[in-house]
């Protein structure tokens, strides 16, 4: 039986880091929610709907867990150097080992709480009854 759940995320705080847990009914929704969670860490204030432009992201990894870390680190890098908070993610292709996405966001003067990176530490993605749960630790 498949469980219908809306994508969601939560944080658990540790000594020098932040554990991010994401629940979603599909891999694309899981990755999109991970992107939104990252932005929520960087700036919790509501952002306007992005307009006018988008960036393309193409990633390859050895498994879906590594793909999730790559995805978050890609967003970290683009946020830091471009001063952009990404909020919209459209996947034209996503599998266990690669993704192609269009991402859109809002330019800001400065990131309030930049994330330094996503880690492989205790990284996991589990799939149960059609629902995905990921745990990834962010260096903040």
């Amino acid at each position, binding site marked *: 039986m498949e469980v219908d759940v809306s994508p969601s995320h939560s*944080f658990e705080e*540790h000594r*020098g880091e932040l554990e991010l847990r994401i629940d979603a009914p599909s891999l694309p929704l899981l990755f999109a929610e991970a992107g939104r969670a990252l932005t929520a860490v960087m700036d919790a204030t509501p952002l306007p709907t992005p307009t006018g432009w988008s960036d393309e992201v193409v990633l390859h990894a050895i498994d879906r867990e590594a793909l999730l870390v790559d995805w978050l680190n890609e967003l970290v890098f683009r946020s*830091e*150097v471009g001063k952009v908070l990404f909020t919209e993610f459209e996947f034209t292709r996503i599998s266990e080992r690669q993704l192609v996405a269009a991402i859109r966001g809002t330019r800001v003067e*400065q990131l309030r709480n930049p994330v330094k*990176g996503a880690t492989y*530490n205790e990284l996991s993605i589990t799939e149960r009854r059609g629902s995905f749960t990921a745990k990834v630790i962010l260096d903040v």
Partner: protein
Amino acid sequence: MSDMTRESTHERVAQSPANLGLRAVGPCLYEIEQDAAAGMRVPARIFADEELLGEIRRDRSISQLVNVTTLPGIVDAALGMPDMHEGYGFPVGGVAATRLPDGVISPGGIGFDINCGVRLLASDLREADVAPTLEPLVHELSRSVPAGYGRHGRLALTREEMDRVLGEGCPYLVREHGIGRPEDLAFVESGGVIAAAAPGEVSERAKRRGEDQLGTLGGGNHFIEVQLVDAILDETAAQAFGLFPGQVTVLVHTGSRGLGHQVCTDYVKLMDEAIHRYGITVPDRQLACVPFSSPEGQSYFGAMCAAVNFAFCNRHVIAHRAAEVFRRMLPGAPQLRLVYDVAHNTAKIERYGARELCVHRKGATRAFGPSSVEIPAAYRGVGQPVLIPGSMGTASYVLVGTDEAAALSFSSTCHGAGRAMSRGAAKRRVQGHVLRKELLARGIIVRCPSNQELAEEAPLAYKDVDRVVDVVHRAGIARKVARLRPIGVVKG
């Protein structure tokens, strides 16, 4: 925003290190035997007293240290310092030496902030000399050195300049840009340049993150402090280091910024993909590693050494700015003199007897003794200065390396107080504006962009640095020389 955003704050439950048979084996030294868990190649040893061991047991750092004992090529023991706490894969405050050429190198054993470290500058001034101008002095320091994550500095490097910083380190800045003095270079670990650096192995992405970050503090526990020598604990060593009671000093604590972080990110990914080709398995993906002599190992070592050079240069530029501020605010005062600059997060090739080893130090300080030829000539016969930054508002220490540490800890010792609680927990227990007033009441002027960030680094969020330093002194892996107390803090 998501439908559900909740935050919880409990400490993670440690994986029963007591069940691993931790037993006392020497002064302030505990050991988990090699057969305590599957896959261990060597024992795990921790320098601590009972109280600090209690702190260490609160997180999973002991289990992480046991994981480190499984790395191929590791020799003698995986070592935990008294300020050890949970890190990514490898605990912060951990040391692991692997035999060359085929023992592994692991980016997780160095950490994200490659060559996070400390530089100590000494003046000939006393408190009374700076007291009338202390507040503007601290303010000017905060204006001269950008602080905070992602903040950029006054030096924007061209790609050619970046490659020369990465490849040639501090001597390049002195020679080509007139930043710092030639006589200071001998007082930077390795002369401020690791010759094995390979700028071509550093990704464009890492260079881009670092291109405007030279001369910036960054965030978190990074800082510049104006301090006073509060107590001399070893007259001979203090004299050799040019330290005297009541002296004004400046301590700079920062690292390789976004550049180093990206180097670590790039190579953990590379090694995570390559590890299986070498038949290596690790209990935590963040411990991804390859043989040192492999193409991937050599590539990482070259990139990591380049990031080490970048961090040396970062502290070098900041120290230069601090000296400019002192000259401007205290006309006629002698130039600030570099006592030493030492790294906390590196892997270095070192010889111990007949063995050539790759010594990973993550949140640990190299601490060569008086007989080492790799320390400044002025300090031979005394030992290498070891600089231990306290948490904001608490004491910092100058220690000196011992010859005994070569056998006990691969010439390594602690690196600081070590975090004891999360940033969020600190914020819930401390109000930034109250802390600011408390520090001011104790004669400490603070410059920090926000009260929230100030609260994150409150002293209660860290272990007791006095106790940490006592342990390494009693264990014989460094000796106490001087205690420094802050009178001005620029927080990163």
